[in-house]
């Protein structure tokens, strides 16, 4: 295991004083992101599953979330909540998604591709 990644896993969770600001939706996200994904085992399927897990609380329709789901249109999620979700995904995969790249991500597929690409760059 990447030692730097290991030390990150030991980082304390964000300060509890921030917690009071979280809405019920976001609380659900926080507890759902505790699982850290091991560097060697990042497959596309796992990334997709992780993204869907983050987005499910925002899916108010009966339609299943797929790779083609347009995050800001098909789900009841505002732009800020999307960016907060990205921060959690960044920490799960130990990557940073630059703001200009965030702006180009529309679908679940695009988000998964971005995560996998940045993940590969880090390992490469």
């Amino acid at each position: 295991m990447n030692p730097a990644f290991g030390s990150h896993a030991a980082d304390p969770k964000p300060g509890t004083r921030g917690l009071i600001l979280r809405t019920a939706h976001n609380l659900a996200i926080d507890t759902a992101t505790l699982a850290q994904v091991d560097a060697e085992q990042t497959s596309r399927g796992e990334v997709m599953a992780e993204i869907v897990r983050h987005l499910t609380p925002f899916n108010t329709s009966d339609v299943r979330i797929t790779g083609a789901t347009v995050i800001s249109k098909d789900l009841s999620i505002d732009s800020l909540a999307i960016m907060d979700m990205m921060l959690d995904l960044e920490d799960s995969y130990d990557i940073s998604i630059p703001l200009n790249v965030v702006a180009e991500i529309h679908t679940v597929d695009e988000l998964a591709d971005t995560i996998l690409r940045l993940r590969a760059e880090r390992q490469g």
Partner: protein
Amino acid sequence: MGLFDRHAGIVEAYRDVRTTGADPFQIRMDRVLSPTEAIIDGRRTLLVGTNNYFGLTYDPACMEAAIEAIRAEGTGTTGSRIANGSYGQHVALEQEIAAFYGKKHCMVFTTGYQANLGVISTLVGQGDLLLIDADSHASIYDACKQTQAEVVRFKHNDPASLDARLRRLADRPGNRLVVLEGIYSMLGDSAPLKEFIDVCKKYGAYVLVDEAHSLGALGANGRGLAEEAGVLDDVHFVVGTFSKTLGAIGGYCVSNDPDFDVLRVVTRAYMFTASLPTSIVASVRAALKVVQARPELRTRLWDNVRTLYDGLAAQGFTLGPMPGPVVGVHLPDRATTIGFWRAMLDAGVYVNVAVPPATPNGVSLLRCSLSAAHTPEQLTHMIDVMTGIGRQMGVLPAGPRLKVVAQHG
């Protein structure tokens, strides 16, 4: 597709807001009476949402200085300092702000928004890394759009989150600039600056702190959070505004960097807009003197913070994480917030509405900002008004105080 179609969602949300009656985003003050009162809809209204932290908009010395400057140098400068030249007042103000912070250089901008926009977008460029708090002000986000630097967000007020991001970027070339705020404008919380500075030092990152809402309010001399945290020497750039504590309009940036002044000829938000009229500059110079000469205004502001924050907390309101000149009152949703705001206005108390997407984490807030000019009576009255509305709207349980008395009796 029409030009305005992309705003359809906002138009719809805005229509909902307006159908409740008064429009919180187009409030009209028929006449402003003082730092704490105005006539709105023909009614004398208490103002608790104007960022007038020291109440200096009506300070006699500031007003006289402005009037005198208009008589001496006219109403406006009619151009930028690069094209039309600087007035002596501009230069004097820059020297006085630099001296206030104990820094070598200062640049004054026409608004605080432009100070952030211009400085941040110009300091970092292609190949550099700009790291910003997720809850940063719009002026900081807009600077991100203007720079070629790669922008990475970290979790709000979370030094460990910044550390993780700087660590991931460790093998990347380029300068790193971290942007923080002294007091965040919506929830009123402050950055854990000492911890952030430690992280920045570890990775050799430059630090910029926006003290827009903390000038005057924080620090033994009112210099802001950097002074209060004892790290002013470790902050490379302080940005601030004249439009809150100093009661006028304009922005500034101070720094010790020997090459700082080159920003005057490369920062578009400085070069291509008209400079401040000298009346504004004169009133700001007078206000800065008041901030330094009358620390009791800071004491009074914080007394008022305690009165309102503790008073609302005692009634059961959910507030922002720490007491400060900005007090955010959490309400369950947008509709409740706007209804509550409207009821307060009808009762003669004006605060700000802050609803998504202007707020972090999708929260809906009544945003209150305190002034040294508020009297304890005004604030006690406001707490009574809010408690009454809160119970009526079911935001607070009905008459909780009576139950407590009964238990102890």
